[in-house]
């Protein structure tokens, strides 16, 4: 990809062997479009397909419904995106979600809502810090580290929150997640603008700050980054801390939106968070990805879910389609050596 991006004005130049280069220049032109656009386009296509099948699906309400479902998955996948960009993976997302959600509810009593919020995010930071230290200092594979961490958290969840009744959801969390707000004249759950705002902040952080750019460098060529004088270990640890904090935030959001918490509440996000990131155009080898793309990926998955529900195909078909979509996406740009 980097090679083809080097002569950016090539597509406009007419070459003698125009016919031969036709395909190549289309490819080059396509490579100039940011990858995060493709999942969004795919979502629009799926949305239109839904409209063809059921014309009453093309409504703003239906769009908002799908987008709300998508944004929750996206929020749960933001941390995963950060981890994948720096050539890692975070399989401790599920139980980080559960742990932060339950600690949030547990801490509301003694610390008050704001204190509990900060406390829950801090647990995510500690989890991420530990992941990062083990990966960068001990040199364990990210997959193994985060799987072990996921197991450890499950034990801690069961030991600490053993069947305790945690049902009182503080007002302000409801206010920023499931409460209806009016935004641009449209009724929607507050989690939607919240998630989009978070997306913008994270994308700016990734694209326009030195630390954000360094995550990509570490992800695509860690050794070169080290030789170039970047503190690779510190950047890695920082990436995992951010990933942990975002997963913890997702836990609080999910508690607020669904108004319940349980030990296994994050289990569904193990594979689907990676799926949203991959469909969003990130490279599983690191160095490429964006939170905007992840939102697009989540929108695609959510729209599939909406279509499957409307057509009454059942959850099995939905899983099957998820699998096929991932296969299509990775065969489009997941080739080893190219991605």
């Amino acid at each position, binding site marked *: 990809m980097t090679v083809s991006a080097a002569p950016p004005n090539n597509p406009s130049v007419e070459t003698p062997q125009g016919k031969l280069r036709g395909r190549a220049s289309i490819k080059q032109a396509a490579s100039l479009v940011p990858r995060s656009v493709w999942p969004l386009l795919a979502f629009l296509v799926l949305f239109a397909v839904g409209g063809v099948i059921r014309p009453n699906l093309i409504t703003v309400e239906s769009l908002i419904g799908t987008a709300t479902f998508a944004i929750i998955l996206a929020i749960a996948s933001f941390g995963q995106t950060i981890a994948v960009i720096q050539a890692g993976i975070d399989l401790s997302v599920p139980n980080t979600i559960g742990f932060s959600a339950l600690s949030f509810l547990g801490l509301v009593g003694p610390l008050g809502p704001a204190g509990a919020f900060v406390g829950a995010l801090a647990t995510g930071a500690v989890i991420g810090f530990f992941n990062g230290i083990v990966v960068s200092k001990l040199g364990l594979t990210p*997959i193994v580290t985060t799987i*072990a961490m996921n*197991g450890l958290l499950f034990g801690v969840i069961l030991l600490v929150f053993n069947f305790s009744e945690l049902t009182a959801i503080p007002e302000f969390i409801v206010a920023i997640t499931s409460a209806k707000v009016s935004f641009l004249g449209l009724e929607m759950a507050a989690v939607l603008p919240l998630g989009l705002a978070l997306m913008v902040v994270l994308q700016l952080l990734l694209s326009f700050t030195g630390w954000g750019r360094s995550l990509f460098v570490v992800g695509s060529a860690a050794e070169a980054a080290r030789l170039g004088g970047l503190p690779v270990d510190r950047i890695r640890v920082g990436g995992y801390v951010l990933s942990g904090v975002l997963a913890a935030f997702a836990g609080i959001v999910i508690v607020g939106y669904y108004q319940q918490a349980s030990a296994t509440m994050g289990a569904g996000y193990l594979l689907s968070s990676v799926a949203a990131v991959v469909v969003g155009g990130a490279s*599983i080898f690191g160095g490429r990805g964006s939170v905007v793309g992840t939102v697009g990926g989540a929108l695609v998955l959510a729209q599939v879910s909406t279509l499957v529900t409307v057509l009454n195909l059942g959850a099995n078909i939905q899983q099957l389609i998820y*699998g096929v979509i991932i296969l299509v996406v990775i065969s489009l740009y997941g080739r080893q050596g190219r991605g």
Partner: protein
Amino acid sequence: MSVLASSSASAPAPTRLRSGGGMVRLRREGAIAPVSAFIVFLLVYVIINPELLTRFQLQTAANLVVPLALVALGQLIVVLVGGIDISIGAIMSLCNVVFATQLEAVPPPVAILLSLGVGLGCGLFNGLLVAYGGLPAIAVTLASAFIFGSLASEVLDRPGGGLTKEIYLATSGELVPFLPVSLVYLAIVAVLLWLLLQRTALGRHIYGVGSNMESVRAAGLNARLTKLIAFGLAGMVTSVGAMMLAASTVTGDPRSGDAYLLSSIAAVALAGAAFTGGRGSIIGTVLAACTLGLIGNLLFFAGINSYWQYVISALIIFTVVGLPVIWSKIAFAVKGARA
């Protein structure tokens, strides 16, 4: 070899290598730590709970660890060729329900063959996309995890199937007093795999592909075919694990494999296998699976809250995998200080 054989001076060398071969191989494959960990674990277990050595408890313990050990062996084969199988839990669920439902329709040997065939098919599906499609194993198996999982629920949507007491006795009973028959099956699979990996050309190619794909290809061997065969083989071994689980629980369950995704990777990690490929031991994997599988039991008998098993498993992984790294760092620092 011919050079060695023609030189009479070097004739004793091969025999000397042979005599220390076992230990050397264990160390090279990183299996010393998991084997010692298992021995310590077993001693502690027998001291805390001497009743393990009664017939009933031996049988229960064996039935608990054998499916995990088999699935971990499947994961190991994929890891040896430098891959990872995220879909292994789904393959297990699918083989499990195929076995359980087919028992109602066809004689048991046919059901066994069908289940093995499905495992092989799933493995080949992954293997084709990874070896011949050039796609990353983690992304391919993420997609197929969704696909196989959906197929499993399609075959059987809730726990059930035609498992009988006879099948339970044939797979999970005792061969002779004090010898659970499931251990015999595990031993047969493990020994056959060991012979295949250590004593055949194909086995050496599997290790070779994992440690250096380019050299294997440059040597004129078919690296892609080797990878494909490894994935297919892994699918079949996983299928054996799935059938053992179905038989010992006397049910087919479309979600039965879910828990084995993370624990199979954990067992392979604990066995000291390299996730970059080319290094990993069969005995280490089997014993690592036994250790992880029995921690819950041990805690139960020690009168400790068995939720601690998740925490302790994670700590064992961090310790056993991390200690050698810390040790070599300390050794390096000491050496540096002395010089």
